[in-house]
């Protein structure tokens, strides 16, 4: 097929009127670039976050010259500074100094000048005795930074230390639910469960009015509220948080956690064709968007107040997807990272996926980090180099 014919077909598909897409469909390749995508040179990126209250973009790396966070300032149009205006190394303890630590997920508080960072560490091996494990005794997974307008970060609190926090995890994301004053946490574990394949858990801390983790009434020490037992990898993104429930990604599908139901602690929907299920949502749509990481499958599923309902919709993309979905709410699209490419599928007026797609080739063999600013209507994608 000639390139001109391919372009014609792609543009033709893009020009089709928006009709309800079937429940399962294959997405054709596109010659249309993802609109409002901004590439940011920041090698080895694992996660990114953009503030809606301050003109700042933060990119998290496994190791870059000893620093883990690169802070870029944004101009009025949302264009980032060419080089980071500041770089920050995540704190560690003497016993763990030689081991790589990395930010797995970051989120700005939607109203307060705070940046939440969920960090993880490469080792050492878990010997089975929590009392002798320096990670359980010295490593805080949750770091909270106050953020100045010039991008300077100051660590103001850290938390999430102990044997109920698993480590050496490669997937997981936090979610700040400012309305219900919670921060949701991935990769927890319940070591009291005898089955070693079902110790995974997800959890949350209550946040006080300053945005800091606070004890739940009745607690003497700060402890997350947890849901377990789940199979490996609990909390590959949280979505659709309401007063009563939240959806989060686990191995094999999405899970609904109803916080105060003692009989049905959680309900797990099964997607037979995926392992790592990453989830996200946006308040504009009554849908949760899910990706089968390392597959070509992107899903949408309706929810009511955080409870999933009816059947998922499946879009099969001709690629291997590597990031959580990111909703570009002003564009009416959901973007997802892949091998050297970012794809964005158009949503219909209700928030369902359509086969209308845009795609941008870039230099990043594993696009894991993306961040969207609704205020600026920009999708920031860290890359190894500009193409």
């Amino acid at each position: 097929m000639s390139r001109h014919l391919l372009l014609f077909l792609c543009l033709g598909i893009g020009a089709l009127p928006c009709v309800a897409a079937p429940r399962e469909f294959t997405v054709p390749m596109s010659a249309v670039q993802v609109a409002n995508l901004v590439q940011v040179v920041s090698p080895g990126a694992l996660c990114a976050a953009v503030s809606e209250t301050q003109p700042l973009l933060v990119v998290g790396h496994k190791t870059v010259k000893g620093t883990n966070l690169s802070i870029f300032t944004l101009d009025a149009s949302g264009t980032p500074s060419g080089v980071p205006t500041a770089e920050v190394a995540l704190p560690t303890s003497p016993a763990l100094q030689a081991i790589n630590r990395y930010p797995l997920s970051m989120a700005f508080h939607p109203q307060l000048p705070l940046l939440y960072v969920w960090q993880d560490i490469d080792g050492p091996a878990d010997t089975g005795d929590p009392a002798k494990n320096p990670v359980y005794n010295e490593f805080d997974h949750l770091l909270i930074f106050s953020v100045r307008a010039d991008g300077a970060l100051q660590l103001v609190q850290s938390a999430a230390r102990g044997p109920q926090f698993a480590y050496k995890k490669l997937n997981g994301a936090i979610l700040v639910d400012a309305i219900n004053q919670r921060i949701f946490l991935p990769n927890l574990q319940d070591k009291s469960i005898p089955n070693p394949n079902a110790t995974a858990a997800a959890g949350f801390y209550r946040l006080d009015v300053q945005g800091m983790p606070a004890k739940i009434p009745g607690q003497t020490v700060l402890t997350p509220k947890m849901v377990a037992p789940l199979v490996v990898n609990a909390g590959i993104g949280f979505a659709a948080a309401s007063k009563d429930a939240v959806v989060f990604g686990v191995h094999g599908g999405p899970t609904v956690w109803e916080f105060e139901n003692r009989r049905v602690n959680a309900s797990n929907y099964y997607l037979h064709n995926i392992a790592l299920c990453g989830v996200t949502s946006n308040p504009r749509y009554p849908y949760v968007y899910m990706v089968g990481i390392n597959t070509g499958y992107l899903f949408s599923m309706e929810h009511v107040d955080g409870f999933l309902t009816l059947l998922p919709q499946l879009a099969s993309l001709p690629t291997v997807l590597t990031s959580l979905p990111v909703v570009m709410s002003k564009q009416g699209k959901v973007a997802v990272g892949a091998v050297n490419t970012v794809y964005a599928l158009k949503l219909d007026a209700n928030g369902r996926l359509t086969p209308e797609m845009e795609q941008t080739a870039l230099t990043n063999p594993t696009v894991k980090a993306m961040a969207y600013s609704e205020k600026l209507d920009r999708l920031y994608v860290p890359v190894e180099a500009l193409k």
Partner: protein
Amino acid sequence: MKNKWIAFSALASLLLFAPHAFGRTMALKFVDCDMMAAIVAEGPRHSWASHDDGKGIFRVNPLHPTSEHSFLIRYALDKIPKGQHITNAEWTMAIGQASAGTRLFFWRITAEWGPGVNYQYRMLRPKALTWAVPGARGNSSDRATKPSAIITVQQNGPITVNVTEDVELWYTGAAPNYGWLVTVEDPDAYILMSAPVSMPPYDWELRVTYEPQ
């Protein structure tokens, strides 16, 4: 030569029109379902809960119908061409484990249901509407007065239910297609079924045979 041409034309016509002239069978699978839910009394806000793993994590595979757990499923029938007569409809699913003599009930749902469906509500969007009896168990209001079929499970493995009458009713428009409700009515019965989303050979299949009217 002329005879050969006539014979060839007749054969070609036969091959071309035979499926329509003599009827066809269509197999409908999970992808052909447009609505589904697994609802439980213990979690009245959940649309997708069925089997308790013993620690309060409810899963949808396997399905675990009980006297307080129900399963709802609707197949879209728009793939069946217009102007046909439904001659047979058989629905096959797999039983994973069951206590001896467990009876599975298959009911035609008679009330519209939709987004947010759960044990209390048949839909929450666009407006909240409750079932007449929680769990869609109101005879003649939520579900038909009599079950379409009752199967006594004798052994594990596939079971097949004849649902010709229901499919014919829906196809002709004599009754709206709100799908089926699968229940167990005996509080002491125990059964685990593969979910429709399961991989073959444990997935569900509705085979509809039709012919021109």
